[in-house]
Each structure stands twice: as structure tokens, then as C-alpha cells.
């Protein structure tokens, strides 16, 4: 996993996305982008995104990977983006 993360930051074409709640990890893989909704509206995070922390509204997270598009319905949470790592902490 660490090797994948390093690779993703080096080629700058993917970012590592992790979506977890306190009791379960829903997604933990490299992806091309992640989209969500916050108070200002829908937004996308792509590789190379600026450091970013946002509260998420209830929405469907859309994670695009080279092979598929994963949709995860959430009630809210916090997204932390730094150095091509997007961590989504879902609400309890």
C-alpha cells in the first residue's frame, strides 16, 4: 500500500483516497479523482490539489478509478486533502 501511495504521488496522475468511518473502511485505493458536496456546492479533487479541509454535506461521494466509478452514499464528514492523499472521515 505504501508503495502504491508513493507511486501515485510520483506520477502525479492519481491520488490515494481513503473513506472510513470509525468502524469500517469503505475505500482505500489509488483513484483518479473524488467528488463530493460541501456547503458551497459540488466539488472535485484531482491529483495536485492544494491542501484542503472541508466539512462534507450528506451526498454521494463519487470516486473515479482507472477501472471503475465507485459511489458511496454518506451522511456527512470531513475531507482532508494533502500531498495527493484524500482522507474522508465519515460521521459516526
Amino acid at each position: 500500500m505504501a508503495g502504491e501511495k508513493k507511486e501515485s504521488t510520483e506520477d502525479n496522475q492519481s491520488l490515494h483516497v481513503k473513506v472510513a468511518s470509525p468502524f469500517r473502511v469503505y475505500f482505500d485505493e489509488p483513484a483518479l479523482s473524488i467528488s463530493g458536496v460541501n456547503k458551497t456546492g459540488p466539488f472535485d479533487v484531482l491529483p495536485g490539489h492544494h491542501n484542503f479541509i472541508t466539512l462534507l454535506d450528506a451526498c454521494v461521494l463519487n470516486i473515479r478509478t482507472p477501472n471503475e466509478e465507485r459511489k458511496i452514499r454518506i451522511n456527512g464528514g470531513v475531507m482532508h486533502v494533502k500531498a495527493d492523499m484524500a482522507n474522508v472521515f465519515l460521521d459516526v
Partner: protein
Amino acid sequence: MKSLIEVAEEQQAMQSVLGLTSVFEGLASMRIAQVKDQVLSSQHFFNELWNIYSKIRVNKEFSYGRNDQDKVIEKNLFIVITAEGGFSGDIDQKLINWMVDQYDSKAQDLVIVGHHGALQLTQLGVPFKRYFKLPVHDSNINVGPLINLVKQYRSTTVFYQTYVTLMVQDIKKIELHRAIEQASKDADKDSEIISEENYIFEPSAQGVASHMESTMLQITLTQTILDSKLAQYASRFRSMRSASEKADDTNKLLKMEYNRTKRFIADERLKEVVNGLRKAEQAL
């Protein structure tokens, strides 16, 4: 002396008790393993969240997810977590008595979780502000209503049962902010500061930090409830193990009694045959 059929029936009933207690023992053991996994997983999540939070909230105290303008009740909130029903032994009683010794209605308000504790408080004539049922399930525990109360009070102390080992359970109290400090001690320490100079915040650093505080409070309270449930499962496991052992012993005694009764009946028949033969010989 009991008849052979009576002993056989008793033995069969005891066999059922043995089977049932073994099943309950297995269930309790399985639940203990599940709850332990959940606590570990939530601790990892908490550490990751704390790691970010501590970089936003540099040199600021944990404010329970409150905004500056929120009014605070100048009292301490006591939350007591007890079992919902039977099989909990005397540990709830100990917990309630310990809490009541420290309770002063002028300085504290009381919230009780679990029907068993509520019943005991009512019997003791100690009034409580709110009562919540202990969650039946071990996952997706909704502590939102409790968090809303916690935010209104200056400080909160939680009284609960704690799991030491499978055979030992204890009672404990912890101030919620200390529980959060304790839980955060395993988080990575790193000197980076997250501010609006190096990050984009949505809606604001304060808003994000408050939300994180709420989430961490929820995790800590959930962990306390899980710890309490763990102790209850362990207590149930212990009771079932002891019941299972007793049933096994009784079953062995009944087996001996069954064999003894069977031998007695055979002996009686033999005696009758011998006596019959003797009488036949005398008659000749």
C-alpha cells in the same frame, strides 16, 4: 428412591441446560471478540482525526464542539452506563452505589443509560434528568442525544463498567476531556501547523475543528459504551461458564444415579428370582 424413568428425564433436562449454556457461552465469547475489534478500529480512526485536529487547534483547549456564543450550564453532568437487564450480576449495584456517594444534586445533573441502573436509582429515590436505553446493537451506536447534553454542561463525568479480563470486570469513572486526552496519547506527534495560510478551509478552521471535536466526543462516548458492553458480555460469559460447569457436574451425578438405580432394579429382580427358587426348593 427415584424411578429409572424419572432419573432419565432429569438427565435429559440437564443435558439441554448444558447445551444451552454452552451456546450462550459461545455467543458471549463471539461478541467479546467483535466488540474488541470495533474498539481497535475506532481507536485508529480517532488517532488519524486527532492528528489533524491537534494541528488546527494549536495551544487551544478542547471545547466539546461548542461555539463561543453557546451558553454553558455551570454544573457537572454525570452519565452512568449500566446494563439493560439481567445477567449483569452485582456490578451495576456497585456502580450505582459508588456514583450515588459522589452525587450532589446542586452540583451535578444525572443521566442514566440502561434500564437496570434506572430501576436501581428509582428504588434508591435518586432523581435523574434523562434516561436512555442501552443500545442493543454493537455497531452504529447513536450517541447524538448524549452529545447534545454533554455540549450544554461545563464538564462531564462518565461512570461505567470496564473490562479487565474475561474473568475480571471493574467499575470506573472518567472525565470526558481526560478520556479524550488519554485516547489521543497514541496519535502521531508531528510539529506541522494547519492554518488558513497553508490550507483552504471550508467553511472555516473553527467550523472544521468544532465538527472534529463533536466526532471525537462521539467516538469516545461510543468507546465507553462499548467497554461497558464488553464488561457485560464478559460477566455473562462468566455466568454461563459457571452454569455450564454446574450443569456438567449435575449431569455426571445424574448419570451415576441412573446407573445405580438400574443396578438396584436388576439386583431386586435377581433377589426375587433367587427367593422364588428357594421357595420352590422348600416346597419340593
